[in-house]
């Protein structure tokens, strides 16, 4: 899915509980070697994992370009 937004995983916040993996209806998430791997092609941005995560380690954010534009910084090539 590509509408300029993407699911982001915050490695620092994550407690590796696996809730998001279990709740995703589209099988877009896996826990591999202690990391949450997001399959962006499968993710529909439905927000179920975002809400379910007990520590807010998942969030939907504009893609990098948008963030860069918001902050008025140029992205390096």
């Amino acid at each position, binding site marked *: 899915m590509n509408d300029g937004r993407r699911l982001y995983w915050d490695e620092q916040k994550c407690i590796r509980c696996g809730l998001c993996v*279990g*709740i995703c209806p589209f099988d877009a998430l896996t826990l591999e070697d202690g990391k949450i791997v997001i399959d962006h092609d499968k993710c529909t941005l439905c927000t179920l994992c975002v809400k379910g995560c*007990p520590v807010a380690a998942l969030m939907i954010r504009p893609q990098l370009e948008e963030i860069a534009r918001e902050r008025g910084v140029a992205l390096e090539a």
Partner: protein
Amino acid sequence: MRRDWDVVVVGGGPGGLWFAKNAAEKGLKVLVLERKKEIGTPVQCAEGFGKEGLKELGIEPDVRWSGWEVHGAKVYAPNGKYVEVKGEGYVIERKIFEKELAKMATRAGATVLAFHEVYDIIKEDGKVSGVKARFIGEDKEFRANIVVAADGFESKIARKAGLKTFQQAYHADSGFEYQMVGIDIDADNIHLFFGTEIAPRGYVWIFPTDKDAANVGIGIDAREEKTAKWYLDKWIEEHKDEYGFEDASIIEVRGGGIPVGGLLKDMVTDGLMVVGDAAHQVHPLHGGGMFLAMEAGAIAAEVAAIAHEKEDFSKDTLSLYNKLWWERRGNQLQRLVKIRQMFEKLTDDDFNFLAEILTPEDILAISEGHWEAMKTIAKKVVKHPRLAALFAKMLT
């Protein structure tokens, strides 16, 4: 066809390990593959285990894991009024308990391998016939007549086999917990705090692990905008004087999903059975699932032995597990789902009212899903129109 293993179990939690012990005792060659580097660690649990449950499973409490003994539960309404329910249990050391289960399984003849992450199933002629796993950069295949998916809330294995075990968000709770030390609690009881502001659809718990220590946690509807951590931190802040939370130590941080409903009618396919959290076999009201996963593991082991005897691992034969589990436990849990659905509509006023009129026996009956008792309780709330309507709706 004879395989390397009679059964390969994915997941070395209570469900998978208890399956392995029981199936090995029946003479089956069983292998358990567990992703974690260490069986039992990290813990994602409040560690409450009733004495009756242990007895039913035939497990003698052992000081190495029995942890802290409690003698009852105090159930609190939002206004602080509580009902005290007697009941013997332990807040166990789950890390050690699971390792003991692994030892029991091994002594019965099973093999348990830690740090083996199963990433796919093997299918032949449409039947599940083994799994693929990774172990320190090495890819391995394990063939078996039956695969048992005991892979917990995340449960990918059954889905890969084509079963619709996906957890509906509506039936999922989000859990978060601190193990705290240096707090001021009544350590003879576990404590459960209800309220819509405290924990939407769930509750805050204090499960003592020592005279001055406890697992302090929360479970809430996973669809809530705010996180479980947010609600727990807020509650702890509001109760810091009462329980001495300020300056207490946090020696462990835990969390996880709890499948409090969405029971599966069908937990088998050709060559595969699903056990425990992966099959959403959790108590829909309080979220306890260790006993239920183990009980289901034992039932699945019985069925695996029958299939082995008949040399028939088809869905038809394995379906006996569906039948036996639903008779033994499923129907009761389904009633508890209905009770939970009524409970999630309660307001704080309703909770406060119930705390005034419910006896400890009533609360026990509710937690056991006793339908006759629910009818009696419904009579007690007739003067409260809202509750009367909710009870009437539930009982139809």
